[in-house]
């Protein structure tokens, strides 16, 4: 084996230019795969963490209409239906759910209405949150002006950059909301902008965060909300389903009856945010297609390079065959050459690809168009380097190189020593 390895290395060094070209192609392919995986993993992380942190939590208790059909929209995760006794329900889930890993259970009230400032108006998503307990959510929407919602200020409004621009709002300005309550009455409320948050995912462009009590007063729902966000200590599938079952039982046991025409459900973030997971799936499919083309190109390169190697070394193969080398050993010699070439290329590609991913992960990639922002779940994408993705890329390239060497190896092993020795 050591001899074969040494032979493979010697042959690769001897045909330096060819090795560099073939290996370079494969290294580039590996780097492209690592980069592609980094981007896909970045999108996946961004979408899932955005969903969990700002919308659903790992699980959410929510009221849905009896005929609810998801529209494959980011707003599916929110419900506008009233969840009776949500504040008390959140407290019970947090107290009694500790055994199944519940860290926090917080009510959230999502409503749609109109925001008015001066003589400008816009449609608004008004999101009432339990300010002292939503530090993670507010951290996910960092302030570009002013400050995030301060605890204890009932009039504070934290507005998205897009809305601030549209309504010409700055910290300290007044803003009014008009909503139609689910019962049918028109209601209004006033607030003062405490801060403007950075425009992130396009579906948060219309967002106005307000204290939960203000949203409850606006919707005429004291003590109620539209969902309870549950955050778990562990988010693996097993822990998620265990907590879902336990909370469903608790809800069935102790939640007030649902409003007529709705039913209360406990949804995992994956169930609530199908839109986001369909984007992730689409990205992964695109990555598989890209990888297939890269593999095909790399395989053609390896086969071509090895066939040239067989052609150049025909006399040499004839000599070793005449000296008694068996066909199997000739095959092993070329396969080893392919494996070594694959490993070296993968290592070089991993280095280059990782460096690019780390660089982009630190700087971020601007998602300048609305389509890109929808795909990435934000106006900036931070690729991430994951060991599993790197391992997959390296293994795939090394395996491909080895398998691609099989055909030239077989061609070489079939050379007759007598004819090979006469080859010019």
């Amino acid at each position, binding site marked *: 084996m050591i001899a074969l390895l040494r032979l493979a290395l010697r042959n690769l060094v001897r045909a330096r230019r060819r090795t560099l070209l073939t290996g370079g192609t494969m290294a580039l392919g590996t780097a492209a795969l690592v980069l592609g995986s980094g981007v896909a993993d970045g999108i996946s992380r961004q979408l899932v963490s955005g969903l969990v942190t700002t919308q659903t939590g790992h699980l959410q208790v929510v009221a849905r209409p009896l005929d609810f059909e998801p529209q494959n929209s980011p707003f599916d995760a929110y419900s506008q239906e009233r969840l009776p006794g949500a504040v008390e329900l959140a407290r019970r889930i947090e107290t009694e759910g500790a055994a199944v890993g519940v860290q926090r259970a917080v009510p959230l009230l999502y409503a749609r209405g109109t925001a008015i400032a*001066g*003589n400008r108006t816009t449609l608004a998503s008004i999101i009432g949150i339990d300010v002292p307990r939503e530090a993670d959510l507010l951290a996910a929407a960092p302030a570009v002006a002013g400050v995030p919602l301060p605890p204890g200020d009932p009039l504070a409004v934290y507005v998205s950059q897009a809305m601030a621009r549209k309504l010409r709002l700055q910290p300290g300005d007044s803003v009014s909301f*008009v909503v*139609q*309550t689910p*019962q*049918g*009455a*028109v209601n*209004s409320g006033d607030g003062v902008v405490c801060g403007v948050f950075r425009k992130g995912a396009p579906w948060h462009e219309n967002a106005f965060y307000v204290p939960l009590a203000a949203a409850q007063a606006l919707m005429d729902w004291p003590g109620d909300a539209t969902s309870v966000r549950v955050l778990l200590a562990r988010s693996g599938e097993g822990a998620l389903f265990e907590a879902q079952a336990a909370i469903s039982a608790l809800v069935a046991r102790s939640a007030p009856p649902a409003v007529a025409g709705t039913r209360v459900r406990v949804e995992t973030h994956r169930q609530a945010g199908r839109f986001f997971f369909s984007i992730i799936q689409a990205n992964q499919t695109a990555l598989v297609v890209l990888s297939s083309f890269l593999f095909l190109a790399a395989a053609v390169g390896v086969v071509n390079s090895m066939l040239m190697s067989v052609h150049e070394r025909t006399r040499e193969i004839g000599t070793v065959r005449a000296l008694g080398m068996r066909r199997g050993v000739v095959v092993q010699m070329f396969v080893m050459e392919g494996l070594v070439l694959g490993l070296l290329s993968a290592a070089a590609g991993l280095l280059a690809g990782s460096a690019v991913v780390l660089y982009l992960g630190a700087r971020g990639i601007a998602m300048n168009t609305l389509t890109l922002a929808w795909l990435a779940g934000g106006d900036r994408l931070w690729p991430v380097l994951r060991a599993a993705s790197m391992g997959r890329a390296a293994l795939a390239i090394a395996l491909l190189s080895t398998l691609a060497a099989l055909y030239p190896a077989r061609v070489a092993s079939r050379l007759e020593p007598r004819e090979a020795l006469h080859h010019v």
Partner: protein
Amino acid sequence: MSRLLLLALLAAPAAPPDPTALLQRAEKAVLGENAVYTMRMGVQRPGKPERVVEMKGFKKGDERGLLRYTDPPKERGTAYLRVAGSTWLWLPSAEKAVRVGAKQNFGGGDFSNGDIFRLSLSRDYVATLAGAESALGQECWKLELKARDRSVAYDRVLMWVRRDGTDFPVRIEYFTLSGRKLKWLTFSDVGRLGAHTRPRLLVMESALESGQRTELRFLTIDDNPRLEDRLFTPSALERGE
């Protein structure tokens, strides 16, 4: 002696009217039980040209109403239908009737669908007399209307009704649940239209968005039309009857 008695009677303040009866009379001041009418709506927004549309409307009792756009040509055929608690919008370009909320704005203006097709204020509100006041230069009774329940669009409404025996409304103010004034409606240009004298211009102004107002001017009114129920169905809306 008899002359003194007459003077005393004339000088005595008029007996306060029954608020519910006054409200019922006031809400029939513009359109009676049944009517076919045409009107022009002008939507004014700061910094934008006025958007003007003309419509033909049909009203039958307290339950049914239909409005079709007749001008400008590009909007011709658009129609709203209100039957009891449901409102449909027919969009000819989409060839589809969609159900719309009573509280959604009507034709992009400051009236809501409910305001336009408000068929019975006295059904949704409890009226009390809040005194006598002058409004827009007219001596009026002031009515305070409180929504019977929280499903009614405006929790509180103030209404000024002329005391000169005509019972024409002069001004209506609409308030939200939180007590904020949302918009107000004024009735003016009283004159003869069709068989009766009535206010011919209604102007709704937003209290929240300064400079936003919508004018409704009645052009013709037929007070005694024969209207069949089948006119007020979604299928008739689609057929363009």
